[in-house]
């Protein structure tokens, strides 16, 4: 359900949802500028904003190439830009910083923060915790969702296999429970990426 609407029954409703998934973009021989222009026209988005954003983060020449000719990073920039330029109420961003170099990650984050609407972002990057203090954060582990937590709170948590008294979240894995608390364990912020959480658990425990 989105805003009381059953997602399966939604038809012809621009401005509700936008996403940066590669699957939703038509495979075409046309350059990025034509694909984006079409998409943003019928999605009710802002093509000039898209063009400006891609130009700043990727270079103007990106617009003249086809999507499959771009590197993984530039492709991610284009897909993010289409999603953000749609100006939808809900913007879904799947790993928006993947394959981007550090400078572009920061620039992209600034753009994401600057866009209105409810942004739902999934990422493994822990460096974001400091940059998004007001966001609600959820942990997704093995198909289950835990939270919400504020990033500031998440920064203080440590992960442990042993039960602790001040447990904040208990994560149920197939291999056993994992406890997040402030008092004992490996600090989450010491992990460059939450992908490393499994490695830590396997190594230590």
């Amino acid at each position, binding site marked *: 359900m989105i805003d009381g609407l059953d997602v399966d029954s939604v038809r*012809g409703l621009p401005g509700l949802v936008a996403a940066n998934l590669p699957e*939703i973009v038509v495979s075409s021989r046309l350059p990025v500028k034509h694909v984006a222009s079409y998409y943003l026209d*019928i999605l009710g988005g802002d093509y000039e904003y898209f063009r400006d954003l891609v130009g700043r983060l990727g270079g103007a020449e990106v617009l003249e190439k086809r999507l499959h000719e771009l590197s993984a990073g530039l492709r991610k920039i284009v897909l993010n830009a289409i999603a953000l330029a749609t100006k939808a109420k809900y913007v879904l961003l799947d790993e928006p910083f993947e394959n981007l170099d550090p400078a572009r990650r920061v620039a992209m984050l600034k753009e994401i923060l600057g866009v209105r609407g409810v942004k739902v972002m999934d990422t493994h990057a822990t460096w974001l915790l400091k940059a998004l203090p007001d966001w609600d954060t959820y942990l997704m582990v093995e198909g289950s969702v835990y939270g919400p937590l504020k990033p500031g709170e998440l920064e203080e948590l440590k992960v442990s296999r042993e039960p602790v008294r001040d447990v904040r979240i208990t994560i149920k894995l197939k291999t056993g429970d994992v406890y997040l608390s402030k008092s004992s364990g490996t600090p989450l912020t010491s992990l460059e990426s939450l992908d490393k959480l499994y490695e830590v658990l396997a190594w230590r425990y």
Partner: protein
Amino acid sequence: MAVLRTCKFYLRSLLKDPYYWFWAVFFMLFWLMMGAFVFGSTMTKDSLREELASHIPSSMPGFESILEDAWSKTTFYYTAGWYSGIALYSLASIAIGLVYYVYYSTIPIRYLTKYSRASPTRFYAGLTLAAVTVSLVAAGILIASTIVMYSYRFHELSKLILPKNLLGVFATTAVGGVFTFFFSTTLALIVVVLRKPKLLGMISFVPFLLSYALGMAGIYVGSGLLHLSPFNLIMLLTYHYYTGTPIALDLPAIMMWQTDPELSSWLGTTTHQTADPLTLWLTLTAWILVFVGTALALLRVQKGVSVEEIIA
């Protein structure tokens, strides 16, 4: 607006596709040239004179005048026959590309029809319009080339072999384009619903194979129900509007010149029961509706094709 915008996007995509230009236009031009200069190389006025002389004494007054008329008609029907077949095969070539377009668009289409101004009806209307337009572009090039090539081959351009009803020829192409689109959509969706991407290559050639098999059968040996297949209907209607002669469903297409009253009176051929073109239009429309219905039903059950399945 969404219809035209979608049409413009896909039209641009299709017109920039080199496979469209090669298979639907240049490959067809190659076959038209074969028809004019290779297969038609034995068609000469002298050979016709000999054939005519076996029916009418050559010493008869007016023989040369009859020969001229017969030569005009023979080359006219020959040209119309070749164009009708090529027009069908051009549509079939476009169909191959459309199968791929629809297949790879299933998830984008779901997304766009939900969250854009393009509702499913508008989206598919735009896509159909694009398919019809590229069909007409190809038809325009092919018909112009046919007129020039065959008029040069048989009359050295002193006389142009023009269609009797050009609007009817283009109307048949347009409706043929609609059929082609929905047939292609159905085939693509079958692959999606079966979740077998490896079948895509084979399935995409089904329109081409059916056009060749049914088209050739209809030209040389077929009659009756064979002529009511959608491919044969497109070919027969094109032939009818090119030549202006009635359609006889009990004859193979190569013999349909016999319905020309003037020719049949010269050569004493049997009269045939002719079919109202409206009947053929209604039958073709029925075929289109069958595939529209099938495509809609498959659209409801398909879940799209993921990137992983495409790569695999």
